[in-house]
């Protein structure tokens, strides 16, 4: 066996491009969505590249990869790509191959969609499948939500695009904090300290420094730490630093829902998602309360937004007080910020709505 070659860097993207992309690199003129899930990019040279976008569970087996490779070999000259939201994109340079590819995808039950005014793949994290700090599962909730919202993936009948993301804890490997709808696993109780083992496994100064609210202080007598319970906001950062402060609590870990975030600069600029529902129970295997809440939010928005209005734009137009009224969601003390920069979210005008 040869020795590993280190620091060789990624494969060269140019070796991964279909000839049509190489020939028209930087020359694309415009694109159109021919039908849900199918794009055509037209070059200044007149060349046309068809993209067929398909949904993926993101966690995929090598059997699935080989299957989509077979399709790419048959219809795309052996080339495909993935999107930033983990959809599969087949890059088709022969128009005649589009329909047969769509037919084979349909036969294999791989859905096509996610273009224009639709929901695309839900960006998500590992959850119980492979993560060591999750407050909930990820793939299971995503699968349950997408089953329910399936028609909004395969059609483009929403007022605008809708981006849903899920993170299974506040670490947010999925960076869900700027999504139209974010599903976020939360802890709700103070970590339990294993005083016996803490000093063997963890650095106490690092641990105390890891707390954003200074709730952790050393306990020299026990060679351990204490947590001031009324300061702890259950972020779990201490647990990431030290396994002897166990924050996972199956009786209390839960799911929260956030709305009105976006990334794109298009029209109104990027903004954070805001808390809509502070608590929903963690109910595997299908999380009915979470699915119902997300569906409700999508449908209330779809029924009330003007054409082209994303969730954030709709809420900005009608106001947050109307958002809570129209959605029927209770407004609680959890909705009023009490962390860093909380005051930037307090209202300083008499202009508000009843």
């Amino acid at each position, binding site marked *: *066996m040869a020795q*590993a070659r*280190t*620091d060789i*860097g*990624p*494969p060269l*993207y140019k*070796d991964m491009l279909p000839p049509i992309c190489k020939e028209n690199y930087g020359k694309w*003129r*415009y*694109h159109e969505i021919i039908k849900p899930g199918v794009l055509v990019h037209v070059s200044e040279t007149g060349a046309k590249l068809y993209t067929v976008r398909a949904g993926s*569970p*993101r966690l*995929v*087996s*090598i*059997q699935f*990869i080989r299957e989509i*490779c077979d399709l790419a070999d048959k219809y795309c000259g*052996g*080339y*495909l790509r*993935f*999107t930033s939201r*983990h959809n*599969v994109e087949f890059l088709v340079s022969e128009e005649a191959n589009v329909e047969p590819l769509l037919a084979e995808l349909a036969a294999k039950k791989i859905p096509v969609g996610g273009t224009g005014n639709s929901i695309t793949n839900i960006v998500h*994290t590992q959850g119980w*499948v*492979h*993560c060591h*700090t999750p407050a909930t599962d990820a*793939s299971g909730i995503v*699968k*349950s939500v997408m*089953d329910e919202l399936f028609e909004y993936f395969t059609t483009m009948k929403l007022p605008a695009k809708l981006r849903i993301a899920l993170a299974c804890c506040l*670490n*947010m*490997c999925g*960076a869900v*904090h*700027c999504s139209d709808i974010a599903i976020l696993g939360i802890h709700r109780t103070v970590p339990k300290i294993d005083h016996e083992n803490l000093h063997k496994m963890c650095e106490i100064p690092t641990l105390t420094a890891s707390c*954003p609210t200074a709730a952790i202080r050393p306990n020299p007598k026990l060679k351990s730490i204490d947590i001031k319970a009324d300061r702890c906001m259950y*972020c*779990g*950062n201490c647990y990431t630093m030290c*396994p002897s402060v166990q924050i*996972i609590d*199956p009786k209390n870990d839960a799911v929260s829902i956030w709305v009105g975030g976006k*990334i794109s*600069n*298009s*029209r109104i*600029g*990027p903004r*954070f998602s805001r808390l809509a529902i502070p608590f929903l129970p963690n109910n*595997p*295997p*299908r999380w009915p309360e979470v699915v119902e809440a997300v569906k409700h939010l999508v449908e209330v928005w779809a029924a009330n937004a003007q054409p082209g209005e994303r969730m954030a734009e709709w809420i900005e137009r009608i106001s947050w007080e109307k958002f809570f009224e129209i959605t029927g969601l209770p407004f609680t003390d959890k909705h009023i910020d009490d962390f*860093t920069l909380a005051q930037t979210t307090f209202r300083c005008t008499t202009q508000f709505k009843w």
Partner: protein
Amino acid sequence: MTEAKKTPLLDELEKGPWPSFVTEIKKAAANSPSAQDLLGQLELSYEDKRGHWKHGGLVGVMGYGGGVIGRYSDIPEQFPNVEMFHTIRLNQPSGWYYNTKALRQICDLWEKYGSGLTNLHGSTGDLVLLGTRTENLQPFFDEVSNLEEHPFDLGGSGSNLRTPSCCAGPARCEFALIDTTDLCHDLTNEFQDYLHRPMWPYKSKIKISGCPNDCVASIARSDFSIQGTWRDDIKIDQEAVRAYVAEGFDIQGLVIDKCPTKCMSWDGNELTIDNANCTRCMHCINKMCKALRPGDDRGATILIGGKAPILQGAMMGWVIIPFMKLEPPYTELKEFLEKAWEWWDENGKTRERIGELILRLGMRNFLRAVGLEPVPQMVNAPRANPFFFWWPEETVQD
């Protein structure tokens, strides 16, 4: 192989029209004892509502400090084949373009050395391979890095430069105002050492979008967000505008009225744009890409400080360089990154991202350290409070 256990809860997730990850695990489980035990352990997680992965565990390959994430089951006696179930991050090609040969090679090696399960892709962008044993890490890497065609390297993990990622770029998108795929490849190669050998206070991420639509969510998900933009006038093809309208396109409702700066007007025949007041949001170009195109004076806006909530709360990137020309060899950008990292490395506390450090020490200190002049594009509004610092040389010293 461990005897196949019944998974009634997970089986529920094979119902419904969306592709099922449970079906994927079952497919892998047909040939892989570790995928089989993953299924069993996950079923147990669904029963008792908690994960069953132990906290931490350092594993890796020779010469590297990152790229592999240790994962151990906390109930190995029940599920011995996932006693170790480590993650390998492979550095994806720019823009997530693949030929099938490259992907099939990975599948073959992962069949030989791993569980047969993958993520395409992880949140930072890597091609993620889920689940292998410690003794397989080095042989896998020896083989994957020696593939005759399309060898792969590891991505980043730990307190290092995380694998840079970028959008589809000029290979497939007409909106790409910078060569995102080339820039991503170039930066990744330039900074291999930072990517593979964790030596910083915490992680640092670079994400590159070709235009202000920001398809890779760089503003929210990276310490250094690079977004293509332009400085001159939007190019209008009036004939094509008229063609849109003739086809029944509601130019007033969908474009003119939705312009955030109200810098556009349509008189029924000509479209006019007051470019000096345009903030290049892309909306009109997105809606009428046959008729409108960005200008020719192209470059990128660099934003700094974006991150998820841990530690001090979520932050979005702040404009730090409103416009930079970005052409190979990208010297100006590389010099800026080096200076910013050096300042952060010198001053940052453990697990403090660069945005948090800038907030703690003040933007003025960062600007001085990296030699940038303050400009109004950096702020929404100037400060409203009268408590501000002066540099010693700005006042009379006794």
